[in-house]
């Protein structure tokens, strides 16, 4: 079980990690600034295993891979959204951060609700209710399962 941090539609990658931080030498030095403009307490309150739940077009804008990377570094277990912008979606899979499309979840849950995700079953469970998620195409699930794209370069 993990706690839900809830965001609205069209959350762009500048909000996930602002420009002035992305040139910092390491992801660890950036992660304390995640979602700073939208939820200044996010980085200090999120615990490993927690979830980000969002509406449509999550991660639009800049291609900065620092956006999914800071979420993963903070221990976010998965991002569940109605839809994702393309580059964020691809980057998240490449670094091994699960990104799950679930159309019904966002409107029915609140920040702070406890959630459980089963990627195998393709469902999330919150407040005693079950919501079906869209499964990843096999190719992308394969990248995620091996721990990200770079793992295949080290085989």
């Amino acid at each position: 079980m993990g706690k839900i941090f809830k965001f609205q539609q069209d959350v762009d990658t500048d909000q996930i990690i602002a420009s002035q931080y992305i040139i910092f030498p390491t992801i660890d030095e950036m992660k304390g600034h995640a979602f700073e403009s939208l939820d200044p307490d996010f980085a200090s309150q999120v615990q490993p295993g927690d979830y980000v739940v969002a509406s449509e077009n999550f991660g639009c804008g800049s291609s900065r891979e620092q956006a999914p990377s800071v979420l993963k570094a903070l221990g976010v277990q998965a991002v569940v959204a109605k839809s994702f912008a393309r580059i964020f979606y691809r980057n998240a899979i490449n670094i091994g951060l699960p990104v799950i499309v679930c159309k019904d979840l966002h409107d029915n849950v609140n920040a702070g609700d406890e959630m459980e995700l089963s990627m195998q079953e393709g469902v999330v469970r919150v407040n005693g209710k079950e919501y079906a998620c869209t499964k990843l195409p096999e190719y992308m699930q394969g990248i995620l399962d091996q721990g990200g794209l770079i793992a295949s370069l080290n085989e």
Partner: protein
Amino acid sequence: MGMTMAEKIIAAAAGVASVKPGDIHTVELDRLMSNDGTTHLTIDMYNKLKNPRIADVNKLVWIVDHNVPCDSAKTAASHKKMRDFAKEHGIRYYEGEGVCHQVMMEKHVTSGELIFGADSHTCAYGAVGAFGTGVGCTDYLYAMVTGKSWLLVPETLKFNLTGRLNDGVYARDFILSVIGMIGANGANYMAMEFGGEGLKTLDMSDRICICNLCVEAGAKTALMEVDEITLDYLKARGREPKHNFKSDEDAVFTKVYNIDLSTIKPIVAKPHFVDSVVDAKECAGTHIDEAFLGSCNNGRIEDLRVGAKIIRGKKVHPLVRFLVVPASAEVYRQALAEGIIDTFMEAGAIVMNPNCSVCWGSCQGVIGEGETLISTGTRNFKGRAGHKDSFVYLASAATVTASAIKGEITTADVL
């Protein structure tokens, strides 16, 4: 069944006869562009590989443009890492040459190529009929090591253009209108293809501006039909097309839009979303603190000419900072030769070196709490140009320059 331009480029890069939307193919990439926004992280990952290697160093182009010249010791460390690595491995490297996409267009990109850029606005390369798409540094590293990547074949939205833009209306107004019409995710995962008689009225600068901004509708890439204007642009720069693909008559488009360019009006995108567009006149009178003319979207010589013509003999409003930033060294020198830099400086503008500047909000010209910027930059997201509680309006070079003179948002026709 016929194929679209995007499908043909992917098929060629995958070495197969045909592809269709939804297929995933392994493709050979022609070029790999990376800038100082993420290259330091790519290098760190490269150095941790068990068997680090570069498939073909000639495909790589590295460009320092986001924070140039350096503004802090941390930036200097990132740049040094990038510079030293490029030198050690013989990677083509530019620093001070301009904004990455403008440099790529001036020096490298050609029709029919498939290009990964570690920057979302890589879709600009469609102006010459190249499939450019933005990726993160992990994708970039994988492609750098193997020369290849995986690509999901996108559906295509087709935009058939007729007519021509009226005087005082620009390519920026057109593409903002399109983004407003289809929304910030209206082309998510898709290619946006532009063609028709109206395209022939748009010069290369207009075409780059249009393709560059398509990612703001979520597009994977943007593509324009190759014509005489494309071929002349390439020939003048000593390049030949790799392929000259056109969509087949029976190609399948997810949706077709017919747009008469003469119906487009001056547009402004309001804070904090690029699809939050209105008729520029609706924003008339909005106070501004800063104006920015530059970026990979609107920092070319054609844009500077538009601004210079409006501001010649006039002055920047005393309470406004007006930043003029040529998109490349080539543009800067051309502007010097034409007296355009003098014109801006006589008017009181601040002319900067070619770089991304305030468009990405972490180098020069950032705005403070509660301040408002009108910009030819690419984005108006919350905090994009500086303080999280500041405001960015996007508009054409003409509207930005006119607003810099008046101290509030205005179109050039009523200045």
